[in-house]
């Protein structure tokens, strides 16, 4: 049975959604991320999306891997069960949970290291299975929690003037998802709440694996091999301790721009990202055109954001394996155990 939690003490002026809850009811504990971290902006957008959709928080299950990004489920939906698993393995946990209870709403939060390095295999296969879930990849191009190593999404082109790692081809989560047959693929930017919230809501609404790649700047680690802020170099010059340990209080990046127009946004590390919002008339129903479009803009040094692809005939894991409509955890034991008579009968087979 489902409980609609009673509205907490009424804060005058606090707006309520259809089930009488305020945004507060969708928040979690205090963030422990750096001031200005893009991930916190995404958390806010998630809170907003769930609130707007009037989803009972306790009917949500929030899962994550390990990383700064993966900490964020603690910062939203305090009335939802949370599972902070091991690094890169959230997709398996959520697949199992979803198999057991198909009636909950699942959100998985991960980072680019968590998803594209150690977790690449599990992410790919969860996409294949089309597990019904909103998957948010909080993408900052680095391993934040381990202090700024490049991740697999560190873009080759945009970092060409820097250290070694950038010589490697970056992995574009959206292109990967499309190639693996994802049924919902979107990209947004933590600083663009206006765009992000609707995408998150669409992802929650989608029945199947909703892949959302959110560019989410790491305000703290823009250093890298060969830079004057790298561990080795600064160690040599004896200024490193002060600087590497120093974190400026930075404001979250924000950007807003006209549909179809290109806007340059300065990242915290001083590099620029060009954002092109998909034109309003863009048709996100053609997998191959979406892929080609992203690639084409990429070749022009642009990152396409928006709802890039959504499949009309998405069949989620349960639809594919034809499980009963009610979730398996709710099946009474009597329906599961054939009993002794049948056991005796069937053993004729073993003689």
């Amino acid at each position, binding site marked *: 049975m489902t*409980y609609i939690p009673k509205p907490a003490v009424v804060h005058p002026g606090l707006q309520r959604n259809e089930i009488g809850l305020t945004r507060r009811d969708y928040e979690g504990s205090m963030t422990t991320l750096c001031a200005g971290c893009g991930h916190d902006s995404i958390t806010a957008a998630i809170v907003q999306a769930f609130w707007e959709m009037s989803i009972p*928080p306790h009917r949500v299950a929030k899962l994550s891997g390990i990383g700064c990004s993966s900490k964020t489920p603690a910062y939203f939906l305090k009335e939802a*069960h949370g599972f902070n698993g091991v690094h890169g*393995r959230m997709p398996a*946990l959520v697949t*199992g949970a979803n*198999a057991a209870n198909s009636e909950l709403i699942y959100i998985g939060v991960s980072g680019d290291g968590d998803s594209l390095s150690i977790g690449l295999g599990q992410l790919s296969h969860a996409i294949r299975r089309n597990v019904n879930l909103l998957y948010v990849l909080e993408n900052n191009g680095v391993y934040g929690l381990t202090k700024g190593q490049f991740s697999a999404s560190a873009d080759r082109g945009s970092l060409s003037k820097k250290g070694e790692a950038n010589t490697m081809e970056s992995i574009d989560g959206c292109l990967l998802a499309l190639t693996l047959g994802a049924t919902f693929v979107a990209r947004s930017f933590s600083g663009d709440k206006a765009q992000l919230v609707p995408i998150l809501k669409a992802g929650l609404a989608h029945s199947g694996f909703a892949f959302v790649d959110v560019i989410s700047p790491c305000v703290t680690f823009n250093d890298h091999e060969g830079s004057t802020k790298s561990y080795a170099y600064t160690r040599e010059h004896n200024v490193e301790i002060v600087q590497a340990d120093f974190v400026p209080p930075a404001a979250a990046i924000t950007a807003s721009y006209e549909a179809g127009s290109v806007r340059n946004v300065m990242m915290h590390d001083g590099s620029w990202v060009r954002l092109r919002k998909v034109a309003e008339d863009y048709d996100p129903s053609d997998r191959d055109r979406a892929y080609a479009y992203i690639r084409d803009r990429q070749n022009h040094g642009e990152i396409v954001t928006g709802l890039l692809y959504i499949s009309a005939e998405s069949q989620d894991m349960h639809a594919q394996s034809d499980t009963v409509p009610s979730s398996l955890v709710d099946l009474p034991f009597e329906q599961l*155990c054939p009993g002794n008579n049948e056991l005796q009968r069937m053993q004729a087979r073993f003689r």
Partner: protein
Amino acid sequence: MDRVNDFAFKIATANGTGSASANGLLMQAVFRMGVPVTGKNVFPSNIQGLPTWYEIRVNKDGYTARTPHFDLMVALNAATYDKDVAEVRSGGWLLFDSSWPLDDRLKRPDVTYLGVPLAEMCNATFKGVRERILMKNIAYVGALAALMNIDEDVIRQLLKEKFGKKQALMDSNQKAVDLGYQYAAKTFSCPLPIHLEPLDKTKDAILIDGNTAAALGCLYAGATVAAWYPITPSTSLMDAFRGFCMKYRQDPETRKNRYAILQAEDELAAIGMVIGASWAGARAFTSTSGPGISLMNEFIGLAYYGEVPAVIFDVQRAGPSTGMPTRTQQGDLMTAAYASHGDTRHICLYPADPREAFELAVKAFDYAERFQTPVFVLSDLDIGMNDWMVPKLTWDDSYKPDRGKVLTAEQLEQAKSFYRYLDVDGDGIPYRTLPGTHPKGAYFTRGSGHNKYGGYTEDAEEYVEVVDRIDRKIQRATKVLPAPIVRTAPGAKLAILTIGGCHAACGEALDLLAKEGIAIDYMRVRSFPFGDEVGKFIESHDLTFVVEQNRDAQLRSLLMLETGLSIDKMESVRYYGGFPMSAQHVISGIKARLDKAA
């Protein structure tokens, strides 16, 4: 000497030729005649063309352990002639395909040769390569039937049951049997001294492999989610579970499935899915073997520290690394007991045969949920993939799953507060809640440091409080885990302590030693951590022989660690070449030590 209903024979062929089916038919026929029988399938780790053997032991006294001594050899694989002829006991028989002259490598003065022109007869009788290859196997079944006095009607009946509707298949199989039978009957003086006489010792028994039995246990325990990655010798467990689910887990009206079997992309994902499903409230399990366990290590630690139930079947094979995937061993005892980095200790169950695999599979789910922790069921290739004769399985319809301390929506509604890791009852077991139940039930499961309230912590005292409680919880489980099986001999100062599938060999060894006047007590542990009785048992004997199937005496290691006793109390008796343990191995190990002493 009288060898009626007490002998062993072996069939050497190549895999992929269909011989396994013929051998199964033989074994089943003996069983139907009411004579206790055991079969060991020794197959290679490839699909076609490599040597494979099938060993059948007939024993009126019901000894089911493997015996390394063979009275008769069916040598149909030229690739292994040397090895095979050497395994026939002096004075024994060797059956070969006399379509070709007897190969020199097969010649031995002290062996009687039984030439049967299998190929010749089948080529003359059957059309098509496929049928000819297949029927050659059925033909030697017929020959052996004549030689060993296996009831023709029983075989006919078995063929009918198998091919009931398929008349053509039925006929050709019957014809092949007759070919072999008649040739042997008229060519040799049948039956041989080693032959069968009907008995009535199998009517309350079944022939079943441990993987099928374990799958039945999962079905009856109410498991709804299974996640796995194929690996020999555990694959047939999941295949069997799927088979049972297709039959017993479909909604009668809609035919929709009341189960989910997830073929994961690897073992890391498989165990992750099991943990996720258990966390969500399902009874979930995975089945794997050594390499899979190694890959599951990280996740197992998460389940242990996050206190999430999980059931893991480890059908052990010969390690280390890839090892010998089609050979049996008990090599994961240590790995399973302390799997994952950091301080961990896991509940393990050790079935000795398929029947116990069924029973312990059910218990595994009860323990996993009751103690909110991973539970290993450690069987092995011999138990899992070979057909064993065991008493019929029974089920207590009053059984109710032990879901452990799970709070319902109502309880949460009443509760003033809920904290996940509080030791409310002082038994080390906290209360859990399932996702979606109730807003008050929400908590955050994590493998990082947490305090008893479920909050993240890096505080020394808070951290220690939780890991100490978990340690108590697992230790207390010994109060309810399956007790060891004990068998005492009056005045015995010596003892055998063993585990799992060694049970059959040890039981036989005890009887043989008793005949020689050597009195030995016996204990077989069935679960880990061990209860106090285990240490007491060892202490109460001058010397305990620890019998197991691995190189490093892993059971003895567990005994030393958990009882604190010195190695002097325990003499290790090991066999780890990949075959099941035999009474001969046990006895020679024990005698070696006794002779040393003497």
